Every structure is written in structure tokens, then in C-alpha cells.
């Protein structure tokens, strides 16, 4: 496999992880977040700083990054708990701008130059090759998706979906809304931080601009494009929107323009995303599958 191809695969897997983590907060618990790239950045910066300044290995610095992102997620979840809907969307957006400003202006974080000298992890006494790294993060993505399947039918998953449907009613039934929302924020931010750690060690060089508001929008697009709240939707979204920039190189000039239009068209005509309940693909598969099903099951 060529280096170019493996690079795209790794990037897409990291995006899939990010989209999956945003789906926990936005799709499962129904909390709109426009600030996901902040946690991605916190994870990346934490693991990069631990790795370059303290001699800790990859295997320790990345989990540390994950933990810090989760903790910051819990902390920042507090102002977010007081606000709802549109206020929440803008508060989370504000978090990105503040976090990016901190990375950009505090000398400790390397300012605009960023942090360099982060390497791919070592194992068996040598540095990991790129294909091996790809397999590592793919395995972790699969584990996360298995965990997600467990969670969906657990009390936690049920509480989240009830909060998503009607927060006031659920609160009146005695469900501790605050606790479940904070858990969603911690889990989503921690996974984003994990993806950030992988990203930093793969790029070997990070800077604040990698984690700006635009990145948040890209992640949100993937979730929305695939189908918000579905298990496979964000993954499909990450794959399609991750490949699209590569195959659209000839029309480089108009790429961002087309991205914007794609987003508009998607929402206008297919608001559930590719894999959403009422969308084209699931209906198509249901129709194909129907002769094999018992009648009245659908």
C-alpha cells in the first residue's frame, strides 16, 4: 500500500472516531455542540506536551490526553448545563474560540508555531509503521463502536434518548438530567481527546489552526451527512466526506464552495442524513429486504 493511501485511511479513521464521539453528545443525548474541535485540540495538545516535555511514552501520553479532555469536558459541561438549545450551540461555539485563543497566545502551548517533534508510537523496540498504526486505531474504533452498542440499550442510553426527546417530561419523572448530560459530555469529549492524541502522533506536528471552528463544522457535517443519532451514520459520513477532498482535487478551486452547497442541499432535501430513519438508503434497503421478512414486521 502506498504512503498516500495509508495516510488517507488513517485520517478517515480519526475522523470516524471524532464523528462517533460527537454523535454521543449530539445524536444520543441531544445536546447540540459546535465546539467539538476544542476537545480534539485539548487531547492533541495534552498528549503532545506530555510526550515532548516529560519523556512519557505514547502509551501513557495518549490516555492522559484522553483523561484531560474528558475532565475539561466535564468542567465546560457546567456552563453548558445551564443553557439549552440555541444558547448551548453558541456557548459551545464560544468554547472553541476561547480554547483556540489559549493555544495561540500562551507561550506554554507553543503559540502560532505549534508543537513539533511528536513521533509515531514505538512497540517491540522499534517505531510503528503507518499500516500498523492504522490497524491500531481501527481496532480502537471498532472497540468504541462495540461499547456504543452496549450503551445504546443500557440505562444510560435510554436516559439519553429520553432527554433528547423531551427534557422537561423526563425531569418531571425523576431522571437526574444533569448527571446524564455530564456523562455524555465527559464520554464524548474524552473520545474526541483520544482521537486528538492519535492525530498528534500521526501528524508529528500540531498547531492551533488545526483545531479551530472550521474543524468543528467538518465533524458536525460528517455526523449530519451520515445521519445524526444512528450508529453507522457518522462513520459513513466520515468516510464519504473524508474521501471527497481527495477525489475532488481537479476541482480544488470550488471544493469548499461545493461543501457548503452540499450541506445546504442535504438539509433541504434529506434532513435525516444518508442513514436516517426516513432517508433514501434505509427505505431502499427495507424494500429489498421485505420479501424475506414476515409481513407486518416493518
Amino acid at each position, binding site marked *: 500500500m502506498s504512503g498516500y493511501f495509508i495516510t488517507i485511511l488513517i485520517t478517515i479513521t480519526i475522523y470516524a472516531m471524532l464523528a462517533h464521539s460527537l454523535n454521543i453528545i*449530539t445524536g444520543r443525548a441531544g445536546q*447540540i455542540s459546535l465546539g467539538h474541535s476544542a476537545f480534539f485540540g485539548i487531547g492533541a495538545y495534552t498528549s503532545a506536551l506530555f510526550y515532548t516535555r516529560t519523556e512519557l511514552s505514547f502509551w501513557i501520553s495518549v490516555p492522559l490526553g484522553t483523561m484531560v479532555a474528558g475532565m475539561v469536558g466535564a468542567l465546560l459541561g457546567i*456552563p453548558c448545563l*445551564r*443553557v439549552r*438549545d*440555541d*444558547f448551548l*450551540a*453558541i*456557548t459551545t*461555539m*464560544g*468554547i472553541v*474560540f*476561547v480554547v*483556540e*485563543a489559549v493555544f*495561540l*497566545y500562551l507561550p506554554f502551548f507553543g503559540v502560532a508555531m505549534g508543537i513539533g517533534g511528536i513521533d509515531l508510537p514505538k512497540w517491540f523496540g522499534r517505531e510503528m509503521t503507518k499500516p500498523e498504526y492504522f490497524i491500531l486505531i481501527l481496532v480502537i474504533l471498532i472497540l468504541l463502536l462495540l461499547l456504543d452498542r452496549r450503551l445504546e440499550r443500557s440505562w444510560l442510553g435510554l436516559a439519553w434518548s429520553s432527554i433528547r426527546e423531551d427534557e422537561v417530561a423526563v425531569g418531571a419523572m425523576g431522571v437526574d438530567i444533569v448527571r446524564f448530560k455530564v456523562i455524555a459530555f465527559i464520554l464524548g469529549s474524552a473520545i474526541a481527546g483520544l482521537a486528538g492524541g492519535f492525530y498528534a502522533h500521526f501528524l508529528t506536528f500540531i498547531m492551533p489552526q488545526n483545531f479551530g*471552528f472550521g474543524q468543528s*463544522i467538518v465533524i*458536525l*457535517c460528517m455526523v*449530519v451527512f451520515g445521519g*445524526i443519532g444512528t450508529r453507522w451514520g457518522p462513520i459513513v459520513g466520515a468516510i464519504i466526506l473524508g474521501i471527497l477532498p481527495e477525489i475532488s482535487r481537479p476541482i480544488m*478551486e*470550488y471544493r*469548499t*464552495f461545493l*461543501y*457548503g*452547497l*452540499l*450541506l*445546504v442541499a*442535504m*438539509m*433541504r432535501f434529506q*434532513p435525516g442524513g444518508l442513514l436516517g430513519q426516513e432517508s433514501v438508503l434505509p427505505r431502499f434497503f427495507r424494500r429489498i429486504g421485505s420479501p424475506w421478512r414476515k409481513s407486518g414486521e416493518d
Partner: protein
Amino acid sequence: MLIQQLANGIAVGSVYALISLGLTMVYGILRILHVAHAGIYALGAYIGWFSFRLTGEFWLSLFIGMAGSALGGYLVERFLYSPLLHLPRIAPLIVSIGLFTAMEEAFRIVAGPHTLTYNAKIGIGNLSLGSFQLTETQLLILFVTFLILIILWVVLSRTRTGLAMRACAMDAETASSFGVNVKAIVAINFLIGSAMAGAAGVLIGVYDNQVWPTMGSIPAYKALAIVVLGGLGNIPGTVLASFVVGMAETFFIGILAIPFPRDAVAFVAMILVLMFKPYGLLGKG
């Protein structure tokens, strides 16, 4: 020095008010976070610039810019937002973000990626009292903004249309049952709000002497912060928050000289206020 900073802060704040008011009016009636409003703002600046190039008349170009923006805003409402109103809140928000991105790129493709200079002769002249100075463009901004704010206030509080607009903002369904043509009110709302954004675009174009494709990026998010800070959909609150943010930025950067990015100030203020007043400065729950 202090008064000078105050004047600068008021000038900046009044442009913020012009941009944010349209946003808050849209939110008041449709409950949509209209991020693409900043695209309309940049559209106004571009149309103003082109018409200035063609005619050489500043006031005419300001008017054409406002008219072009108003039309653009109306089209966005008619063809993108109104079909999406029955969907969850996130759908129009995402459309808006996508549209804003596409608009920025469209400006770059059509007008080129470089900065266009917009040095119009306005003919007011600078005002200086000793060490205190107001430049011609600052005077222009203050004059146009206060004129527009007064017109808006008169329309909202003294006319039947304004009454209908306020009624729709409170409860569109009830207003409709009392014979208010809600669709027309929404359209008027978009026309007025977008024209104000267009005016702000032209004014900033002249003030900074430049028009460039991504000029909407920072106002897009800052205007949202201001609108939330004032209490979403609350018009007096938005004006207040605009001036608070304008002043805070000028003071932070100008006097305290804190090396903190100017554009994050609005968000820090917003997060701090929301911690204690979750519905903004003048918002009601």
C-alpha cells in the same frame, strides 16, 4: 485618552449593533440562528463596492448595497429557511452554516481572493477637539447607525407593521389568528434585518478601507455571541450588548494592552454572563 477610547468603542459597538439587530429580529420571529447573516453583510459590502466603482457616488452605493442585501436575505428566507421550519432546530442552523461557507467561497470565486480597497470620499470631514479626534468614517458610522436605529425604533413602536412584528415575535400563531399576515411580516423582517447588515458591510468596508471574501467570518460568530449576551430575540438587549462588547474590546486592547485576541473577548463575556444569567443580559426565560 479615555474619552478617545470611549468614542472608538462606541463606533465599533454601533457597527456590531447594526449586524446583530437583524440576527436578533430573525431569531425573534423564526427562532433560527441565522449564521449566513454575516454572508449577507459581506454581500452588502461587495455590492456597495461594485456600485461605488460604477457610479462613484458613496451614498448611492450605500443604498444599493442595502437593497442588494435585503434582496439576498429575502431569497434565503423564502427558499431555504421557510421549508425547514418544521424540522428540529439543528437543521436550519446547519443550512445556515453551509450557506455561509458557500457564500464566502462564492465571493472569492467571483471577485477574486485579494482585498479590494474601498476609499470613498464622503465629504463630512474629520472632527477634532483638542486631542480628541473622530475620523470622517467614525462620524459616518455613528450618523448612519443612529439614523437607522431611530428609524427602526419608530417603525417598531409607532406603526401597525411594527405592532404586527412585535406580535409575531411574541407568538406567531396567535398573531396569525388575529389576522396578521405572518408570512409577509417574516419577509419584511428579513428585508429590514438584511438591509441593516448590508449597511454595516458597506460602513465597515469604508472604515477599514477594504472588502475581502472572508470579511464575514468574524462578525458571523461575534454577532451570535452578542445576540446571546443580550438575550436572544431581545432588541434593546442586543443594542446594549453590542455597545458593551465594542467598549470591552477597545478597553481591553487599547488601555490594558492584554495580549488576548480581540475576537475572543465577546465569547468570554458571553460565557461569563451565561453562567449567572442563562438567558442573557436582558433576556427572560
